[in-house]
């Protein structure tokens, strides 16, 4: 069946409207339907809808109804993001929301990020020197381990010295923060 509007492309969408007891059927292609405003051009299911559905399922299961009133009044003190709005869009208003909604957040992080709830990657060097060093040490330790496993002992010794120097540095600065 061809599209009634452009008569070029095949009709892939079929609209039935009832007005004044009158049935009106239209057969259109995707392009014309979106040109005529009958559908949104990008008519797909947005990820946050999916997330918020997952989330509702989660909280319903966890809370078994009653507790919800306390949760529902939760508001982020910094940006005033409310619980209801957070659940609707599944998006945060500011960095403090991550603390405010932390209990709601964890189960969803697990689902979205393959069971992970903690960051292991890059750290801002200037603001978070401490974490950044800790991570560097961890990277060196992993390298050390693989060097030993593959019997590259000279390299391993070098890495061991680097770790020592790093840790020394850390203890010296210990009192600063």
């Amino acid at each position, binding site marked *: 069946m061809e599209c009634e509007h452009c008569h070029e492309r095949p009709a892939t969408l079929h609209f039935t409207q009832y007005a004044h007891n009158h049935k009106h059927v239209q057969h259109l292609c*995707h*392009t014309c339907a979106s*040109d005529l405003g009958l559908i949104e*051009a*990008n*008519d*797909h299911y947005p*990820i*946050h809808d999916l*997330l918020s559905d997952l989330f509702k399922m989660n909280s319903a299961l966890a809370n078994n109804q009653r507790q919800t009133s306390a949760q529902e009044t939760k508001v982020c003190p*910094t*940006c*005033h*993001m409310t619980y209801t709005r957070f659940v609707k*869009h*599944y*998006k*945060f*208003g*500011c*960095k403090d929301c*991550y603390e405010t909604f932390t209990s709601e*957040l964890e189960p*969803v*992080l697990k689902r*979205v*990020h*393959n*069971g*992970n*709830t*903690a*960051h*292991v*990657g*890059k*750290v*801002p*060097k*200037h*603001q*978070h020197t401490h*974490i950044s060093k800790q991570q560097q040490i961890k990277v060196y330790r992993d390298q050390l381990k693989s060097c030993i496993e593959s019997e590259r002992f000279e390299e391993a010794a070098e890495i061991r010295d680097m770790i020592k120097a790093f840790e020394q540095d850390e203890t010296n600065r210990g009192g600063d923060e």
Partner: protein
Amino acid sequence: MSLQSFIDRAISPWMQEGGPADDIVLSTRIRLARNLSEDPFPLVASSEALKKVSHHVTEALQGETISHYEDLQYLALTDLSTLDTRALVEKHLISPYLFEHSSHSGVLLSANEQLSIMINEEDHLRIQLYFPGLQLEEALSEAFLVDDAIESKLNYAFHEKYGYLTTCPTNVGTGLRASVMVHLPALSMTNKLQKMIPAINQLGLVVRGIYGEGTEALGNIYQVSNQVTLGRTEKDIIDNLSSVITKLIEHERAVRVMLTKQSGVELEDRIYRSYGTLKYSRLIESKEAAKCISDVRLGIDVGYITDISKTILSELMVLTQPAFLQQYAKRHLNQHERDEKRATMMRERLTLENDH
């Protein structure tokens, strides 16, 4: 404006360079989502707050040299016409989201358009870097340099446990989206890709068409990117992506060889018919155009067509988009007029090629 200079404007300088595996991989992109520590995220921010962020960021970065990207230029979307903004979307320098939220938003661009930093997108900063061909490691280490340079000037929202904080929890942690744009005509033609997608998804990666709606991939161009951003290091994320892309490349090449051996005439016929369509048609829809462009590019890669340069695919995919056609025509065009302009544009583009 001559077509050549129009093309030069439409195609970012970095796109004209070749890259590893560029018979299949068109480009590599690294995107980092970052927010400023002291300001509300764009989702809830008042227009005053948004203004403050864009002011703060441009103050710190405009005209600066970030890593080796000199003299970043800021484009405020409110200063651009709708058509010019759409053209930036079609060049992938800004996202459709930024286009829809254009008040107080903008983009900082490097001269070669390899680096673009969107301001007040879903997050305060979206840092994007493009590389030609498959260059995930290069792109990541470059992105880290850019990120470090920005971080020395601006304070990021960072959480000891959750990492870089983002508006949407799907980006939290590394804030990294690594994507590789691949041209997979042989795998698509033989329906092998459809069978591979579920396996790819299981590795935490997403495959989607970048032109066209929904799952349809116009021009057989797909984007493969990571979904998981938390609990894995950036290096792990790109290694995982890289190994999948390497497999895709191997399979695509193998199927291309098989096709030329087993159904050489059919393939050659299909490619030359498409070439003919591009060369002679007077009206062409974007879907048909994309198919023909993809066929011709495949023809170049397998050696049937020798007098056209490889960049034609990425070039024409951008040039034949609605905003570019209208910019070229210098006026608004309805769909029928666009189909006509698109055909003209492609004929002229091929003539240009034959003149060289």
